[in-house]
């Protein structure tokens, strides 16, 4: 009944579209949120990981005899890592793998025929799957970090600007994962690309060693690469806010989003043609 009303009402169309993607996100959310045991174990891993970082960096800093490196204290480092890890691990299972499977199994043919944008569909799913994990990781991670290293000074601007960086970094991650998944149109096995990507994130995404702790020359390079702009930049900004840093990071993000967004769009269209030529 309401569907008919919405279709007749032109402005309602946008609302309808939003509802559609919200439903998709919801389905993905419930799908991943149901396994209680897995939730617990995932949280336990978060705890242990942060615990390890705390001990590692406390010891490392004390041996180096400093209280601050690259502008970050141990506490800041830990909160930084907690956030980078939470952001990044929330996005499993890998979108690229899902798309790879879709392409390989041929269900892509169905997705493309559906009356919604393929990319938006996957974005909704991406969001839906990661939101519960993200919230839980952040919640537990914050508790642990608080207990182990205490609080760090958080300003409203840090959070506000940090969220902006997080949002755009998220989109950036989405595009790159999408692109990797789309290479399934041409390549037998995309897992090699996924590994390289995740290792790029490991090394240059500040997952274990914050980029602020890199040697100077390497730091500059790393901050220009897309990996650092996905989750590290948001975490870094929140932990120790500097407006100039925000502007630098944000600009870099936009450049990369534009670049990868275009590549994704291009690959997608090329891929679809490839499918119709080869019959899938």
């Amino acid at each position, binding site marked *: 009944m309401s569907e008919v009303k919405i279709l007749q009402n032109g402005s309602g169309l946008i609302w309808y579209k939003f509802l559609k993607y919200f439903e998709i996100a919801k389905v993905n959310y419930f799908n991943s949120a149901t396994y209680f045991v897995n939730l617990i*174990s995932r949280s336990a891993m978060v705890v242990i990981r942060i615990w390890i970082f705390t001990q590692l960096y406390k010891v490392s800093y004390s041996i180096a005899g400093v209280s601050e490196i690259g502008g970050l204290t141990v506490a800041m480092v830990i909160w930084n890592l907690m956030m980078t890890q939470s952001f990044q691990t929330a996005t499993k299972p890998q979108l690229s793998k899902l798309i790879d499977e879709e392409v390989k199994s041929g269900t892509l043919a169905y997705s493309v025929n559906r009356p919604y944008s393929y990319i938006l569909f996957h974005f909704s799913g991406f969001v839906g799957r990661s939101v519960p994990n993200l919230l839980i990781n952040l919640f537990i991670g914050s508790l642990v970090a608080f207990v182990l290293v205490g609080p760090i000074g958080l300003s409203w601007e840090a959070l506000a600007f940090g969220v902006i960086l997080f949002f755009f970094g998220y989109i950036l991650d989405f595009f790159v994962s999408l692109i990797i998944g789309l290479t399934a149109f041409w390549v037998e096995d995309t897992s090699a690309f996924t590994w390289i990507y995740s290792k790029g994130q490991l090394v240059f995404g500040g997952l274990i*060693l914050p980029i602020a702790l890199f040697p100077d020359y390497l730091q500059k390079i790393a901050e220009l690469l897309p990996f650092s702009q996905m989750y590290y930049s948001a975490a870094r900004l929140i932990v120790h806010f500097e407006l100039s840093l925000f502007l630098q990071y944000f600009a870099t993000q936009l450049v990369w989003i534009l670049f990868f967004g275009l590549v994704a769009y291009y690959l997608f269209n090329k891929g679809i043609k490839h499918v119709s030529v080869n019959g899938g």
Partner: protein
Amino acid sequence: MFLSTVVKYISLTWEMTKLSILSAMEYRVSFFVQVFGMFVNDIAFIVMWLIFFQKFPSINGWQFQDTVMLFALTTVNFAIVMIFARGAFELSRTIARGELDYYLSFPKNVLWHVLVSKTEISAIGDLLFGLIIFFFSGNISLEKIGLFVVIGILTALIFLNFIIITQSITFYVGNFEEAAEQMFHALLGFAFYPQTAFYGALKIVMLTIIPAFFITTLPVQLIQKFNLQLFLILIGFWIFTTIIATVIFKRGLRRYESGNLINVKM
């Protein structure tokens, strides 16, 4: 009698693995991409630690050289498990989907059969990486090589037991697949840190639930400087984990055969 059974199973393991590799080589490109991709993957990982040690050259005596040896050992024993017993990683899924039936129809030990039925091609990349950097890890002597081989195999077996135990929990709890995977990643993840940084309660965790100590710290120490006592402890831990793995799997299999598993499609 027992020995001949062991020999039989070892040679069958070799046959199975050979077949898996042959099967994968049907797709030449994918095969090499996987091996090479994993190799690059591992290099990136150690590069990250290289950067770390630039800033923090020594962690309570642990230096980059030690991390290199650690990597060599861990990647090699991980590779051994992945090449000869990759089925272990899918044990949970196999149980949950009722696919053990297939293995139960053969006149061979079920657990063994599940383990050897798959091979991870990319692990060949890990193996190559591990062996290569072993030779960059410091003074190499014949003794060291011998130790590396023996201890490598021993730790691989301990690692395997850990996976069997965590995956077999599915017999009792239902969908433990993801949790088991998490625990595996935890173990593997923790394995690469400079172990000398850890103290207190965390150290205890690494000795027990996530036995990173036994798979990394202890073996590396033994290879750098052999100590009979420590070696016996390692062997003891291996025997201990083997017993637990066997018991948990056997009891679990009994449950499976009762048909009363949760989530199992009968």
